[in-house]
């Protein structure tokens, strides 16, 4: 027992000194991703970390693992660490109002990515989710020639995916020859893959042979649906599977004739991460006024539709 305690003590000391020794007197950037197991959160956070390290900054990269209390604690801890700036990827500004306010009062500038606006953040980097949602919805309906039956895989727990769903509703309300046969709303964040698989499997079983199209609120859901459809022998276009986000795996599937994933709206997550670092550099380090760089609470970036006609442009050789 004494040996074990000695090991704990020595380990703690070594860990503390090793981590502490690694820090130099440079710009300290805190980065928090709400759920690193989600590819898009990780893409933003890793892009921020990479861009910051390229500038020679110290980066503390944290993962809230989808836990709200952990997310709050991490913002508080980075505030206590007196980082020079904070980037939050896919955060929850309303729930974290008190923590973000405390960070702001401590003089820590915050930039959020795909989180929604907060009075305590400099700005939120976003795509125009209304436009993105409309692009995906209209593409799906176009493929169906504005008639047929669809399934929906939604996620209401994130502001972006929620907006996409609401825009789909608006498009469907004006195009009533397209019927929604069934909807599954992904609820769990920690085990969301199982949730999507179970929900969509049930919907496909209930509606066998009647589904012309499937709308997924983000690509991670679409991968699971694609795998389910492929296992059932479905082919590209029957049904038409459309979602939103983009990324190498999505492009591979769109290009793959054996995959049912037809199109996505590609959101530039890496560009968003790089933009966050670039703008923090200009505003915090160089002292440029935020008003001259970002018009309002949102910095909107462009998203582009990717389907078999242009996926070649996105596939890396």
């Amino acid at each position, binding site marked *: *027992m*004494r040996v*074990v*305690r000695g090991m*704990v*003590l020595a*380990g*703690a*000391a070594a*860990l*503390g*000194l090793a*981590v*502490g020794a*690694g*820090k130099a007197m440079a710009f*300290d950037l805190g980065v928090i991703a709400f759920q*690193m197991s989600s590819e898009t959160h990780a893409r933003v956070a890793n892009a921020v970390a990479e861009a910051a390290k390229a500038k020679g900054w*110290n*980066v*503390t*990269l*944290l*993962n809230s*693992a*989808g*836990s*709200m*209390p*952990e997310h*709050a*604690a*991490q913002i*508080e*801890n*980075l*505030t*206590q*660490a*007196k980082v020079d700036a904070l980037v939050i990827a896919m955060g*929850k500004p*309303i*729930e974290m*109002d*008190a923590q973000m306010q405390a960070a702001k009062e401590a003089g820590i500038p915050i930039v959020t990515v795909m989180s929604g606006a907060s009075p305590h953040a400099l700005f939120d980097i976003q795509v125009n989710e209304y436009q993105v949602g409309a692009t995906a919805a209209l593409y799906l309906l176009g493929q169906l020639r504005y008639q047929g039956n669809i399934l929906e895989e939604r996620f*209401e*727990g994130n502001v972006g995916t929620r907006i996409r769903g609401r825009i789909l509703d608006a498009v469907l309300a004006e195009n009533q020859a397209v019927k929604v046969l069934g909807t599954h*709303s*992904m*609820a*769990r*964040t*920690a085990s969301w893959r199982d949730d999507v698989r179970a929900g969509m499997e049930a919907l496909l079983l209930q509606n066998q042979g009647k589904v012309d199209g499937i709308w997924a609120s983000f690509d991670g859901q679409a991968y699971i649906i694609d795998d389910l459809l492929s296992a059932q022998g479905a082919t590209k276009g029957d049904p038409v599977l459309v979602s939103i986000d983009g990324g190498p795996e999505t492009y591979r599937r769109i290009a793959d004739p054996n995959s049912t994933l037809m199109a996505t709206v590609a959101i530039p997550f890496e560009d968003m991460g790089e933009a966050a670092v670039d703008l923090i550099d200009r505003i915090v380090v160089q002292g440029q006024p935020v008003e001259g760089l970002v018009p309002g609470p949102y910095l909107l970036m462009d998203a582009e539709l990717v389907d078999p006609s242009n996926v070649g442009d996105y596939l890396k050789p």
Partner: protein
Amino acid sequence: MNHLLARFGTPLAGLALFLVFALASDNFFTLANQLTILRQVSFLLILAVGFTFALIAAELDLSFGSVASLAGVVTGGLVHFGYPIVPAILAGLVTATAFGLVNGLLVTVAKIPSLIATLATGSIATGLAFAATNGVAWVGRWDPSFVWLGRGRLLGLPVLIVWSLLTVALAWFVVGQTRFGVWLTATGEADEAARLAGVAVRRMKVWALTLSGLCAGVAAVLLTAALSSAAPTSADDFLMSGIAAVLLGMTMFTPGKANVPGTAVGALMITVLSNGLVLLGAPYFVQDIALGVIILLSVALSASTLKKAAFGL
């Protein structure tokens, strides 16, 4: 010397960890950061105290995280939709306590091992929380008097610190200074001997699991107020760290036995570790690894009690 080391070795290791962080980070040993740590540990501490009650009676409660999430949804939902605060708080407390009571009855009347019974009721609580919310968190700028419970200050201290200190002090008193505590401990240590000595063993187990539920309810109300939101899984992640805190607590003061001061120090060590690593700039995965190592070491030091609670060995 060996006896002292056995009782105080782990807190000394915790103190050493504290000193390492204080030396390695300029921002660790500040009043603001120490208050932040004490505030952050509150939810974990209250939930872990509840789990301690269960483990003292040699039972496991693996439902406390899910039950706290459900209780948070009940209280948060009522506040969100404009119901008066006091009934909303009571509803959350009653929900969690009722789950604890059901756990106790399943273990003592239906004779289902607590490991399985509480896993099942935890799953039911999760299902009910999702059914109530459809998976979407209730968020809002709620009544300030409710939010004060989680974010306010009392006598200059963050009020969460006051609630958690009160909970620990009360639990410590109940376990250490009352006949109820003696019976509870006797039930956990040797239930047959306790029964022959006239202790209502089954009733003690029901009480232990009910108190665990009540603590989950208290933590749920405070968490919901602090976050000004109620999500169906908001407290689920406390399960692992709560168990780790209690196991770590079993390596100190009364080694091998669940005890309230040990739990308090264990929870504090986990929170200090998490805070200190962030202040030192450690990446997120180091925290997960550190928590895993803590659980392994503490289980190694307190394996016999855990085996008894989990498998009746």
